[in-house]
Each structure stands twice: as C-alpha cells, then as structure tokens.
C-alpha cells in the first residue's frame, strides 16, 4: 500500500472537487491512499509552504501549483521532471493530453506538471441592474468604452448600487488580462527589460483609471467586492471563470446572473492569461512516484476535468473531457453561464511568470501600484513608472 500526501491551494474552490476526485481514485486504485495536507489559501501561500518544506519530512508527495509559480518552483528544483514519466507512458494523447495542453505546465520546455484547472477572466453581470440602467442584458457591452458607459449608468441608479468590480487585488492576473488584451507583455523578449509600462500597459492602466473616474468603481477589498456583487449591489464584475460555481450559489435567485466574454483593448489580437494550476510531483521516492503519476494523470485527466468544470467554472483542460459525451457531454448546453469561459479558450496564452527569486514580490508590487490608481492617489503613468522601477530592482541582475 502506498499513501500519498497531497497539498492544494484555494480550498474555497477545490475542497469539494478534491474530495470527489480522491474518493473515485481510491475506489479505482485500492492500493493507493490519498491524504490531504492543509490546503493553502492562495497560490502564493501554496508555493511558499512547499518551498519551506522542501527536503523536510513534511513535504507532500504531490502539490497543485499556480501556473504562474511553476517557474519559481522549477528554478529551485522543486518539481520532479515529468518528461521521463510521459516518455514511459507513450499514449498521453489518447488520454486527452494534447501537446497544447501539456505546454501549459512546461517551463523552458521542461514538463514540470500537468495542468489541472485552467481559467480565463470573464465578465459577470447583474441583468436586473443592467435593465434598470437602461441597458439590454441580452447584448452585453463588447468594449471597455461600452462597459464604462454602462457602468456610469448603473452607478447613477443610486441607492448604494456600485457600478463595477474589477478584481485587481491579490495578484497580477487581471492586470495581465488588460495588458495582454492590448497586445502587451510584462517583460521584453529576452526578459532583460520591463515592458509593461509601454503603450499597451498605459492603455491597460488607463482602463483601470477610467473605471474609477468615469464609471465610479469603488475601492473594494477582494471579499467586499464579491459580497457586494452577490448581494446585487454591483452591476458588473470581472474575475476568473473559476469563481462561477460559487457565485451562482451565493447569488441564488436574488437576481438574474449572466456572464459574457471580457472586452479586449485590441479586439483583434488581444490575448488572455491562463489562470489555474497544475499538479506537480514532489516525491523523489521512486515507488511513490509511480503512484503519484497515476494520481496526477487521474486528476488532470478526463474524469478530473469532468468534476472540476461543473464544480468550479474552470474551462476544460483535457480534450477528452471536453469532447466525450462520457464526461462533460451536454453540460455546456444546459449551463449557458459556463460558456463565456469556453468561448475565450482560443485566446489563452500562459500566465506570465517572472524570473528569479522575487516573483511573489514583483506581482505584489504591480498590485500595490494598481491600487494607487484605484484609490486615485497616483495617475496611471506614475503608477506604471513606479512599478516598473521597483520591478526592475527585484528582477535578477543579468
């Protein structure tokens, strides 16, 4: 018998999903036992916990790492290289792991994990408020200008109703959504210069600024924004599709919840960052590695995806799951709210991961400076410049 210790982040999203998957896995593999380590609240805390535990007996055998933190993990030599395991396995594609999908969890071509849950940012809106504000909920805004105009109208409803909640807190993901949507990048090609303060970045940050100035977006903390939205006090929210299931539950039948694709500054070439995480094998124990590999494939495989997608709102990361009637089947037809994320899948590119030891700090710097724009204590330009110079300092000197 083998016992695998599994660690994962964001129990709010994944607790139920993990329980279901591990139960099923243990039924199918009676000789392997799954036990969970304490989950971490965020991807960042997750990776920090693992980094602290490396080399100690506390280190779990498997963990789920945010896609943007795989690079950091790899730089410290934490994950087991899955290349050899894949080579042994031979029929990955048949199990639904296309090359495209495998790529999501590669760092410099090295397979460090298997993507488990993938997401992109979408627009949630309160159809009732949109209607009250004179909009048509069936044709949600397609550009940021339209969003801002609609937001201003919603704000004008008064009665404590807020217009927009743009989820800029926590990490740089939503900023990336604006930046990539404008065709920008974080650093230049060879990662020697900061690039997010270029024209694309300026456009991105200006959107944030205008959301506040023109559409009256308030300064929400993360939970405050969520709560206000599900309470029916916010017109439009932008955040990960992964939060969909929870949002549906929290809204109940208080109002008519809808979703739509997120506007892009560059509607033609704009891209979106891929959120989510990948399962990573940590154990160096050969015997355990086999069991771990089995579990990793199971979780990231079609069965896993068929649990993750309906249970959270993530988009399918496994082609088999997406297409085979055995798994998701007619799920999307029956659940139109889930379609927004699905439709955006072609635009998904990797969530950019900064090089070096200070990755977490870098993203924190971007968040801090975005907050200055949100609370209007800095202009977009100032915020970008400050962020750029700070990030430059934090990047590894080459």
């Amino acid at each position, binding site marked *: 018998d083998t016992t695998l210790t599994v660690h994962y982040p964001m129990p709010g999203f994944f607790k139920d999903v993990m329980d279901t998957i591990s139960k099923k896995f243990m039924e199918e593999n009676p000789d392997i036992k799954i036990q969970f380590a304490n989950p971490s609240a965020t991807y*960042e805390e997750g990776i920090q916990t693992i980094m602290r535990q490396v080399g100690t007996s506390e280190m779990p055998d498997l963990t789920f790492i945010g896609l943007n933190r795989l690079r950091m993990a790899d730089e410290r030599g934490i994950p087991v290289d899955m290349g050899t395991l894949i080579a042994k396995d031979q029929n990955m594609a048949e199990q639904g792991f296309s090359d495209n999908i495998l790529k999501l969890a590669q760092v410099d071509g090295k397979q460090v994990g298997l993507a488990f849950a993938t997401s992109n940012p979408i627009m949630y809106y309160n159809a009732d408020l949109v209607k009250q504000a004179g909009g048509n909920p069936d044709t949600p805004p397609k550009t940021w200008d339209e969003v801002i105009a609609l937001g201003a109208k919603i704000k004008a409803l008064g009665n404590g109703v807020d217009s927009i909640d743009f989820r800029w807190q926590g990490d740089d993901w939503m900023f990336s959504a604006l930046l990539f949507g404008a065709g920008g990048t974080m650093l230049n090609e060879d990662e020697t210069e900061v690039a997010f303060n270029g024209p694309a970045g300026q456009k991105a940050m200006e959107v944030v600024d205008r959301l506040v100035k023109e559409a009256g977006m*308030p300064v929400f903390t993360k939970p405050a924004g969520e709560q206000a939205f599900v309470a029916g006090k916010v017109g439009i929210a932008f955040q990960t599709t992964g939060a969909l299931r929870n949002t549906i539950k929290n809204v109940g039948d208080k109002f008519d919840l809808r979703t739509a694709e997120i506007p892009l500054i560059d509607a033609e070439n704009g891209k979106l960052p891929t959120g989510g995480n990948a399962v990573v094998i940590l154990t160096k124990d050969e015997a355990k590695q086999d069991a771990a590999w089995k579990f990793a494939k199971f979780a990231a495989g079609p069965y896993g995806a068929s649990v993750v997608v309906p249970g959270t709102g993530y988009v399918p990361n496994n082609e088999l799951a997406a297409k085979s009637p055995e798994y998701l089947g007619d799920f999307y037809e029956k659940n139109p709210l889930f379609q927004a994320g699905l439709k955006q899948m072609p635009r998904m590119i990797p969530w950019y991961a900064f090089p070096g030891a*200070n990755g977490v700090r870098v993203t924190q710097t971007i968040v801090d400076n975005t907050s200055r724009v949100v609370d209007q204590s800095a202009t977009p330009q100032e915020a970008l410049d400050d962020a750029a110079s700070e990030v430059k300092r934090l990047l590894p000197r080459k």
Partner: protein
Amino acid sequence: MAEIVATPSQGQTFGKVSARSSAARHEARTAWLLAAPAILLTFFFIVLPVFAVITLGFTDFELGYSGFQFVGAENYLELFGDRTFRQSLWNTFVYAAIVAPVSIFLALGLAMLIEAEGIGRSFFRTAYFLPVASLLVAMATVWQYLFHPSIGPINAMLALVGIQGPNWLGASSTVLYSLAIIGIWQTVGFNLVLFLAGLTAIPRDLYAAAEVDGARSAWDRFRLVTWPMLGPTTLFVTTISVINAVKVFETVKTLTEGGPNKASEVLLFTIYQEGFVYLRVGYASAMTVVFLAILIVLMIVQYRIQDQQVHYT
C-alpha cells in the same frame, strides 16, 4: 559566603559556620532544583532564540537554501532604505497610539460604571470580555462584513442618519483606523477585567474619607482616590496593552494582507512576510531585532514615566 568558600580550612574549624552555610546551601540547592525546569526552558525557548535572532540578523540566511554568510550590518542598512519597513513602523506606531490609550480609558470608564452598578455585573463583565475570548480569525470575517462599504450594517446605519460611511477596510486612508476599532474591541474586555479587580481592591474607607474631606463630585473622588489607587493596575494594563498593540498581526493577516498599497502593513506582518513568505530569514531577523528594541525602549520609557507617579503600598 564567598570568603568561606575560599578558605575551607577555616570553615572546618568553626562548626557553627559550616552549620549555617550547609542549611543555607540546602535551601539554595532546593531553590535551584525547583527553578531548574523554568530556567532551562527559558534558556531554550527565549534566551537562545533571541540570541539566534540577533545573530541571524547579521547573515543572509534564506530558508530553503542551506548555508549562509555573515553580511555585517547589511540587513540593517537595507532596512533603513526599505519603504515597506518604514511604512510598517509608522503604521504600527499609529495603530498602537490609538488602540492602547483608547482601550485603556474606555476600559477604565466601563469598569467604574460596572463597579458602581449593582445589577448585571456579571452580564456586563461577560459581554465585554467575550471579544477577548473569541477567535479573531473568525471574527475577522464578521468585521469584514460589518465594515462592508455598501452592504455592511455599519454604513447602512450611518446612512440612516444621513452620513455617507467611509470605505472602512478598502481605503488606504481609513484601513488603519478600522483595524484599530477591531483592536480596541478585542482589548477592552481584558483591560476591563483587570481594572475591575483593581477597583475592588481600593479600601472603601478612602472614599469615605474623600467624601468627608469635601470631595463632592464623582470627578473629585476619582481624582483623589480612584486614579491614584489604580496606579499599579494602570501600569500593568498599559504595559500589556502597548505590547499587544505593537504585536498586532491576526487582523492584518486575515483582513487586509497589509493593503491596500501597504496602508495597513504592520511590523509583525512585515516580519512574517519577509521570513515565512519571502523566506529571507536573515533580513526578517534584523527586523525582529528592531522590533524587540522598540518594545524594550517603550517599556523602559513607560516605567520611567509611570514609576514616579505610581504608588505601591
């Protein structure tokens, strides 16, 4: 004693001397034995770690990497220029400067009211003490909701009287004060109980004497008897309150993560971030040393000021 040890031959000649020192030695040996566990544990869990922190403060030790180098005062120099750390120092100071005095005086006032009141003493005592006994991690969620800018009860009530409530935890201008309110809420009960105990210990005769002496108003009696007699309690309460305020961590960790834009970054949170999140133990140790130094200086200053005024019977 020292001389006797130095000249054992003399000690032998006078039986009386050895009798005395043997009894005294026996007592001292017993005392050592009884104190030994405490001394050992203090050494291992307080003294040694403090020295370790001081030492680590001069290294570049990082968790996850083995080995480290001594870097002299580099960490301290870096601290000097660290915007986050300066912000964090200032925030901690502001927080403590609000929470400690308010929670002390509020507790004192409430304690006197409860003491003067016959009924419901144990109800009030419990009601005010409850926050002390409850999980901040959990209560933070409630506070987050209470403070919610648009759907929160506090702003809803303010709206009833026509006041546009602030964005309590969301705005960098108010976040620290909001945390201070929670801090006060959590500390008052503790101080209150201490003050209640202090009040019961004041001899009733002193109040009688004050009345006979012509202290007509409650304020006069407070100035003449209550306040001076509570001196030692106040000293203790102040010490505990200041230390606790400087140690604020849980609310920041659970409610704001230091944000927005470091507006609620406080010392312990910064140390935690550096040490356990960014894993820079050496740098975090240097911060810890500064933190300890601040505590010690604060206490010395406070004792100096209060010692002159506090009366111990």
